[in-house]
């Protein structure tokens, strides 16, 4: 009997006004070639985040969508959020 754990990036989505990259990893427990259990692990890459340690497919998506224009727009958005918070205090 062979039991192994496999991890696969099975979903990469581009969401929000600022092109966040939502990543889903599928984790399968496989016994003798049959999947006996599946779980998911998720994370998100914002335009201002480093993506150099991501899977090649995820990196490609980040490079395509996290343009300088998107990064600048997101930085402006974050600054506005922080200014709003300061104004409320």
């Amino acid at each position: 009997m062979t039991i192994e754990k496999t991890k696969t990036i099975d979903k990469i989505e581009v969401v929000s006004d600022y092109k966040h990259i939502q990543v889903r990893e599928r984790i399968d427990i496989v016994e003798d070639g049959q999947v006996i259990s599946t779980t998911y692990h998720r994370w998100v890459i914002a335009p201002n985040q480093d993506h150099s340690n991501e899977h090649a497919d995820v990196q490609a998506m980040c490079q395509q969508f996290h343009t300088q224009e998107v990064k600048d727009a997101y930085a402006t958005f974050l600054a506005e959020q922080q200014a709003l918070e300061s104004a409320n205090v």
Partner: protein
Amino acid sequence: MTVSVKAPTSTTGSIQLNGSDVLTIDSSGNLTAPNSLTSTGGIYLGGTASANLLDDYEEGTWTPEYHDDNGEMGVTSYTDQNGYYQRVGQYVTVWGEIQTSNTGSLTGTTGGLYIGNLPFVKASTGNDTFGAHLSFVRRFTPAANTTSPKTGLFINNSNAMRLYKEDLTTGELDLGVNATELSVQTTQNYNWLVFSGTYLITG
């Protein structure tokens, strides 16, 4: 493989695969499957309006982490980074625990303190519309006349939860926690939070 349609009684029918029912329907239109039903388009529950459509369900894990206004933090290691989520339609409930084992110097941290790396991006829904509950808080270093983190708000267009504390001068729960209020420690069990919350997501 043999697929057949059966109507064993006047009120029920079934689709069989190799002689076994894989789907049964009664005269009221109720469907029954012995193991599971799968519908990529969703299922209408309690009505047929768009508000009755359940189009996604998922559960899994994520890895919470602390970060500052710039999405960065010098925390070098954590004792716990346990995050879980359950998505039902457009809403996601997250819960988990985070505590540091070595914060490093935190040199260069600026602005507010967040729990980041949430599993989904929050939709833009106006300000302060989805909050988080902190059920256990231990060993932060709050500024004078303020408390440790007491609550959190999910930020629009972001996968982060902003942490807030109480202003002991006014009694109001409206002060953002600064990133520098993490306790700078090289031992475990500091900056410890147990949290939960629900928010609306994009897409």
